[in-house]
């Protein structure tokens, strides 16, 4: 074979597994060996489950022999460590959950298991998905495979870096303010955040419940469609999952994009956008035009308020969601003289500084006397941001923008200044506030050799159109085929 197995995509491997040309056990062994050899330099995995993965691979092999496989049977994946896995430690990259072994599976995990996927392990992230760099992990930062010493993005940085370095074939991450799309862009891979309600959040450890959504991080758009086909759909266990029919996302890839109306929001191309990122995204827009798309200038006038709005709503929800970590039901406990001291001591030792900062911010904006000025105002601004999108999608099919204003920055560069870190989320946050889907696809490199991503945003439940356009773009370019030189 021309290429080693770990280099292939899910959709390239699926037929080889189905015919028996490739054994899932051999494939899993190859990836586990690669993880063991290369991961110490990147720190993408929090937990590697070699025994579990090999057992799943053997089951997959038997199932494939019976001719009962799916396109995901025997495919080795890595799961962001915020998705709970029965019998396999789930830490959320936090000390407070360092010993937590969940008694059941998240719905997405159960669906992948049913399809016969193999789980290599759990991958690194910012603690409780709070961060844009994967530096806020109790288990140390993850490095960018394109340049050690640079961040992989976050919070699903372990997922994106592991996919980019061929340490798994695909991953599921979660996206609350860009946490799938931004690391995908920084690592040169594909990341899809579905519409709020498209994928069940049951078993996704909650950060900000009205914004969180699970989605795939993969080597190409076809693989993202394959994973979405498996995990999308209504789940009675999640009352916010929506009962809307799931189309065949793979089928959508066959369509061309002639006549597709692509909105270009002027607010996403202004001050603060790195010139190399802008140039790469503008070239991507030209490519879309060459494929038959029509560019339409649009305006999303409330974009400049999105970061402030998000960090009020997200932290408010987080302060409530993270109240459950009290040393009683699971996780670590600090012994103390009384219950209140036990709570405070456990939480202070268990949470890292960014999580404590966000809990305090959220507690403050919800507290008596400040609720109206902060939380209520933010909820109203959120409605205006949603309205901006509704108006834009009144005259275009999707929007095209940068993912992140700059390529990946250096580890440590923004740690001391949380506000600067928050501002780097400017282009991804609005989609979460509006509940709409977005995808990041590789569209170029900086002069320093770091990947740049193109973001496409769609109307609610417009994943098929997003995947169709992203796939057409990918077919016309070869950015997604580039691999980090050291991997």
């Amino acid at each position, binding site marked *: 074979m021309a290429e080693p197995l770990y280099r292939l995509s899910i959709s390239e491997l699926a037929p080889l597994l189905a015919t028996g040309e490739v054994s899932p056990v051999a494939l899993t062994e190859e990836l586990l060996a690669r993880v063991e050899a290369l991961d110490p330099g990147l720190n993408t995995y929090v937990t590697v489950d070699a025994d579990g993965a090999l057992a799943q691979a053997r089951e997959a092999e038997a199932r494939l022999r019976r001719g009962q496989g799916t396109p995901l049977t025997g495919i080795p994946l890595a799961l962001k460590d915020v998705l709970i896995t029965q019998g396999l430690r789930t830490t959320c990259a936090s000390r407070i959950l360092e010993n937590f*072994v969940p*008694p059941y599976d998240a719905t997405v995990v159960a669906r992948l298991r049913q399809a016969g996927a193999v789980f290599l392990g759990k991958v690194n992230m910012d603690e409780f998905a709070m961060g844009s760099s994967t530096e806020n992990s109790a288990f140390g930062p993850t490095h960018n495979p394109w340049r050690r010493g640079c961040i992989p993005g976050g919070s699903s940085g372990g997922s994106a870096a592991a996919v980019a370095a061929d340490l798994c074939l695909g991953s599921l991450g979660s996206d609350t303010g860009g946490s799938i799309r931004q690391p995908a862009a920084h690592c040169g891979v594909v990341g899809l955040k579905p519409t*709020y*309600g498209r994928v069940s959040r049951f078993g996704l450890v909650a950060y900000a419940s*009205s914004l969180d959504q699970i989605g795939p991080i993969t080597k190409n758009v076809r693989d993202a469609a394959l994973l979405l086909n498996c995990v999308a759909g209504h789940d*009675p266990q999640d*009352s*916010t999952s*929506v009962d809307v029919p799931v189309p065949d996302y793979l089928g959508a890839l066959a369509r061309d994009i002639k006549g597709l109306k692509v909105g270009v929001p002027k607010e996403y191309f202004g001050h603060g956008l790195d010139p190399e990122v802008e140039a790469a995204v503008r070239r991507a827009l030209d490519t879309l035009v060459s494929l038959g798309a029509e560019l339409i200038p649009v305006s999303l006038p409330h974009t*400049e*308020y999105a970061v*402030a*709005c998000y*960090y*009020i709503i997200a932290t408010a929800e987080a*302060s409530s969601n993270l109240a459950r970590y*009290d*040393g*009683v*039901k*699971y*996780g*670590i*406990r600090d012994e*103390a*003289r009384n*219950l209140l001291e*036990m*709570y*405070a*001591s456990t*939480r*202070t030792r268990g*949470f890292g500084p960014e999580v*404590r*900062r966000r*809990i*305090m*911010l959220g*507690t*403050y904006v919800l*507290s008596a006397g*400040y609720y109206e*000025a902060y939380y*209520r*105002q*933010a*909820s*109203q*601004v*959120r*409605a*205006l941001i*949603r309205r901006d999108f509704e108006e834009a999608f009144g005259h275009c099919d999707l929007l095209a923008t940068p993912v992140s204003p700059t390529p990946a920055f250096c580890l440590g560069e923004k740690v001391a200044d*949380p*506000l600067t870190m*928050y501002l780097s989320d400017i282009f991804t946050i609005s989609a979460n506030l*509006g*509940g709409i889907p977005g995808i990041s696809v590789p569209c170029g490199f900086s002069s320093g050799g770091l990947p740049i991503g193109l973001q496409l945003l769609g109307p*609610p439940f417009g994943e098929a159109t997003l995947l169709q356009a992203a796939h057409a773009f990918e077919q016309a370019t070869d950015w997604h085929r580039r691999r980090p030189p050291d991997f």
Partner: protein
Amino acid sequence: MALTPEEVRHVAGLARLDLQPQEVELFTRQLNDILAYMEKLQELDTTGVQPMAHVLPVANAFREDLVTPSLPRDSALKNAPAREEGAFLVPRVI
């Protein structure tokens, strides 16, 4: 609306967090930077705008009230730092 170190200590108390003296100073500065940035939202006139807590129009998601198996008690208790007689054990409250 600048936060004082006393307010930061109060908020930490509400959130059941302890702060070291040097952390009070650091968090006061950082939270004030962030809150100053959030003042930006006050530029907008939101009179008459219905607040959006959630993007979905779903108000209530009802299901039939059926008896179904739930997580076995042992599984639910397995991760507890302390347990006794089928219950979570905590330090004496009264």
